[in-house]
């Protein structure tokens, strides 16, 4: 099997995740898109590990580590989103603009 297959699919999946992160407004959907991007990276790691026959199995072990980090990230991210919802009653990322400078301050 050519290396181009997994690599191209992971690039496409990564681009889909990029679109989701930029275009979605709901914070949970943004988290889902981040998961898509992480999975694209995992596919790359596994493909290169299988291709290069790494003696230490670096790619697959790093994939497992990435999955653990993703689990930690989702847990913490959802806690933050729930806190945001409790404080603000909405989780739209483009309406969390308390730290934005207003026009008067920008002058």
């Amino acid at each position, binding site marked *: 099997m050519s290396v181009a297959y997994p690599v*191209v699919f992971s690039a496409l999946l990564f681009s889909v995740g990029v679109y989701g992160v930029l275009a979605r407004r709901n914070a949970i959907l943004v988290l889902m898109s981040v998961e898509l991007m992480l999975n694209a990276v995992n596919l790359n790691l596994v493909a290169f590990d299988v291709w290069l026959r790494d003696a230490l199995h670096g790619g697959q072990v790093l994939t497992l580590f990435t999955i653990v980090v993703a689990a930690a990230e989702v847990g913490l991210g959802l806690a933050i989103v729930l806190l945001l919802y409790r404080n603000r009653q909405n989780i739209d990322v483009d309406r969390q603009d308390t730290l934005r400078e207003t026009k008067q301050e920008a002058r």
Partner: protein
Amino acid sequence: MTTPEIVFTALGVVAVGSGVLVVTTKQLVHAALWLVVSFGALAGMYLVLTAEFVAWVQVLIYVGAIVVLLLFGIMLTRAPIGPSEGLDSGNRLPALAVALGTAAVLVTLLVRGFKDARIDLKPGGGSADALGEAIFREWVLPFEVLSVLLLAALVGAIVLSKGRGPNDRGGARIGRSGPGVRGSSPGSSSRPNGKGR
């Protein structure tokens, strides 16, 4: 095209297609369910690449745990079950341009770079046996550090989401801005996901 390539391409089309549905669907719950399809197809791709342990870990952690966690998040933020407006922000076209640019650059670069490299698919390299040996021989220190990181993250999540009782004066208090606070006033007239529900 050999049989692994055909199977891999089919699974890849399913993964990317359901990924597109995740980022375009109008229903929050459907996005989470399409995410299950995408991750399942990815697990199948790992299986084709002979990384069987990673494939089952993917099914267990992603499909079993992370998607359920996301569904809990959807439920706890009282998202509507039916189609809801306002899931997409106003910058869809720039986002589409950036994503298409990323895809074009990455795909051209990677196809030109790797179209001649061949993977020799031989079973056994990704078994739990081989991976367990690798983790507990060469990767022990990162493994332990990662377990401490996971513990710290989950303790942090508990501290963040601990309920604020009437006499709880610590921790989870992020600057609470009422409706009159400066800075939250512009754009607050259109709130599709707001307090109305």
